[in-house]
């Protein structure tokens, strides 16, 4: 495992391939959309507004 960590440190210092960077960016946006859509579609927005109004009218 020591060697694994050493290997990781070497990878960390290398620059990512542009395709990986691009793919990561796209998946990052996708993850944000997916998380947002999940909570919206499950009715959390309604729950939040309900709790908000129960506290602050």
């Amino acid at each position: 495992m020591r060697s694994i960590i050493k290997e990781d440190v070497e990878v960390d210092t290398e620059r990512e391939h542009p395709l990986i960077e691009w793919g990561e960016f796209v998946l990052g946006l996708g993850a944000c959309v997916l998380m947002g859509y999940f909570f919206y579609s499950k009715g959390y927005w309604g729950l939040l507004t309900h709790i908000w109004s129960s506290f602050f009218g």
Partner: protein
Amino acid sequence: MVELVYIVLMALGSTGAGLALLRTVGPTSTSRAEELVFSIGVGLGCLALCTMFLGLLGLLFEPVFYVLLLAGLLLGRKQLIGMAGRLQGRLAERSLAWDSFSLCIVVFVGLALALNLLRALMPPHGAVDPLAYHLALPNIYLIKHYLSFEQTLTGSLYPDNIGMLYTAAIGLRGASLAQVVHWFMGAVTVMAIWCFCRDYFNSQVGVFAAAIYAFTPVFIFFSPLAYVDVGVALFQFLSLWALFKWMREGGDRTLLLVGIFTGLAMGSKHTALFLGMASSLAIFLRLLKLKEPPKKMARSLFLFGGVALLLAMPWYLRALIYAGNPVWPVANELFGGLPYGSNFSIAMPSVVETSGLQWERIKDLAYVAATSLWEWAWNGQLGWQRATGIYYLALPPVALFHWRRARLRWLILGSALYYLMVVLYVDGNPRYNLAFFALLSILAGWVAQRFSAHRIRSLRLLFNSTFLATLLCGLAQSYALAYPAVHFTLSRQDSEQFLLATEGNYKAFSFVNRQLPPDAKVLLQGIVKGYYCQREYMWDHPYQRLLQYGEYATAEQMLERMKELRITHIVRMIHIPPGRINFFPQYFTDSKHEEFRKKFLKLLYRDNGYVVFEISYPS
């Protein structure tokens, strides 16, 4: 609220004992956090095992638990004082080092755990499994002062380390403390995830991973209830952590620790056997790769397996002795134990059983493996025990881009294999496999941290704001679940009033506890939630084989059988709801039960939902 004092004492006693034991037999810790978490795990395991042995010896009396706590505190007093001082210094440094975003996440996690704690502090109510056996069995053990075999109760011979912690908690204070113990084990798992990530990646990854696990809906829902799964997940996760540590550092003492946690997990639930077997295989392959001589390999495997089996063995031996099947009633077709009305087969995964042809099987397995994570996240019909949330779906795939990073590669491989084991063999139920989600949360946490610190500012900002918004939603969910607890805490209602209003059978059982003689034996008809009954009782659930109504042609024969079983009273649900009609007869419209009632039952009590009868045996 007194439960909070007790849980602090239990935590200190367990940590003290754990620290003392780890100093003697454990490995050198790489950090204070690791030492603390491992100590808590070992200490809780120690308390569970001590309670089990006391139960086997017939010594389950309240003062004994105080002695156990005191022993833990005395045993580790020097280490506890030393650790408190060191932690104080370390925490002060760390809080300064944390950035404001991480602190914000930590505050969210803290609030969610606090809301869960409020739920744990309520009197146990509602949920079936805790009141039917997770709390009911410890309560019976305490009444009888030993680990009796309750043949009609589901789970009476399951491995029960977590149940032993509940026994100690009920003995010390009550069932609310047992719920707080379960909550505490969940909170320790959250801390363990952060500590693990801190050692293997960095603190920020730990903060994200811990938050992802703490906001997993199945965890939020079940951690304050007296189920056992969150506790099992703690032992399983600690065994995985110790295994990683052994892979990195080697050493017999670390392997011993892997064995200890694996044994504690296997002694807590059957499902942990699978992870135990997988760990054995991983250790074997690692030893092979290191080209260790056969003698050393055998020694290492024996050290791990021997300790794990030794710790778990008493539970399996107990089942073997009482029922002739070490995992009774599971796999009865294999071991041929005491008859049981349901077939918990382990021969093959359920999806395989339903398919005939080989290619159909493969297709089914592949479909289940490919869609389970998606189904758990989106399908609300599956209920809380399969509600895993979105993080595990949205984040881990990104880690595949970083396959070259060896630590991630191993984590991806480990998670993938664990996932396959979960969906294909361990019932595909996320509640039974929370340790898998603890592992996956690390992968998700690593990806979240990467997005959070991404060099493209717009992605960084978008991700951070989305992640915080989702945590806010999770917090809203926690608050919604905890709302009755908040109301209860702020009201002047006491536990008795609360239970009379919320727990259907509480009134009837209050009557039983007040009016029936101490040696009464009660038959519960149409009821499995027997926790609040303080007399000896049995179920008439069709899976049990002691009293099968269909075997008796006349009311007199049924009476004869009840006499053999020493049943003196009956508590009956008046109207069996449609969902349970396949399990229980509709007693008051069933001709045989009506004949029996008219001939031999005397009504003692009645409310809207339940009646209590006395059986009139002819003299």
